[in-house]
């Protein structure tokens, strides 16, 4: 199921993340609608726009090629679809649009998996659960990548908490 993304709501603080003069457009990929809703809410809170959601890697790759997002949040453990798993989708995205940032999210942290994705250019490897502190860390990461961002300075407690999430 491919979900059309409604217009991003103004949830939380008003600051926004922008790529150039445009908001950071995000493709959210996770097989759990519950987690997609959590991620959407957090992304909108830090000022990103969710362009679309996908529930498997094949849908993600298709939407990636169509929408050309600035950022992808990609769940690592999803059922394979059309012979495409998260790792192959990740590699295809990196090859086709290396300027697009990809954040891996997983409930199942394995050292080998982390090394594989980070050495291949992932922006971050997040171990669930996700909450405000995790996305404050993501906001800082994005601010470093997109030079025209209006990101605020991080709160010290957010820095400490983000340190526990393999950012």
């Amino acid at each position: 199921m491919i979900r059309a993304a409604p217009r991003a709501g103004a949830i939380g603080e008003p600051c926004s993340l922008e790529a150039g003069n445009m908001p950071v457009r995000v493709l959210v990929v996770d097989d759990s609608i519950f987690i997609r809703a959590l991620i959407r809410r957090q992304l909108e809170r830090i000022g990103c726009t969710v362009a679309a959601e996908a529930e498997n890697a094949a849908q993600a790759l298709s939407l990636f090629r169509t929408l050309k997002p600035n950022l992808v949040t990609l769940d690592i453990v999803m059922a394979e679809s059309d012979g495409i798993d998260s790792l192959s989708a990740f590699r295809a995205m990196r090859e086709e649009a290396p300027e697009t940032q990809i954040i891996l999210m997983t409930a199942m942290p394995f050292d080998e998996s982390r090394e594989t994705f980070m050495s291949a250019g992932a922006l971050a490897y997040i171990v669930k659960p996700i909450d405000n502190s995790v996305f404050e860390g993501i906001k800082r990461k994005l601010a470093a990548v997109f030079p025209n961002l209006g990101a605020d300075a991080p709160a010290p407690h957010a820095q400490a908490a983000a340190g526990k999430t393999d950012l």
Partner: protein
Amino acid sequence: MRYDAVARNLEQLMAAAADRASYALGRLLNAEVRVSCCQLYHGDWREALTESLQGRGALVTISQTAFGAEPVVVSIVIEESRTRCMLDLLMGRHGASLLPFVDPVSQNGARFDPLEIDALKETANIVTGNCIAVLGRELGLTGCSLPSMAAEMPLADTVCSLLPRVSSMCVKSRLKASAHALEVVLMISIAGPADSVAAGPAAERV
């Protein structure tokens, strides 16, 4: 793995995994969650576990198996009557709703809609993942099954579903969110070799 020789280290490792699981569950629920009781079972502990779960209402069990040198089964067990509170916390129904309301439908005899089943399974997945973050390196775990959920099973079947093998070591922890009168039982079971069956069921506090 020499089951008897490393049991004490495993016990400490599993208690650490339970601590991390409670931390993860607390972040998911946005509530303080504490490990209130951590109990070690070893040998053929089905009878002792059955006894400890008796008297509770209908149970919902969500289990995953992590693969390695020895399989590890991580399960969360919740009284069905408590799942509503947990779902409300997960979905922000005490405040701004995270997900649209869907009329409950009957599934496996329990009244959960598909979104609620997804939320419960994903919660178990995250709790299990945080256990594996502690256990994985020590036990050489390399992968994990998808979560499977069961509701309204007979107690004996529930207990069997928590066992990787008859001979297992298990730490049962109670994760409590006291402010919300919510309790989740976390079971972490590690299979022992077939020839290491203890003389009988045994339990001790750790």
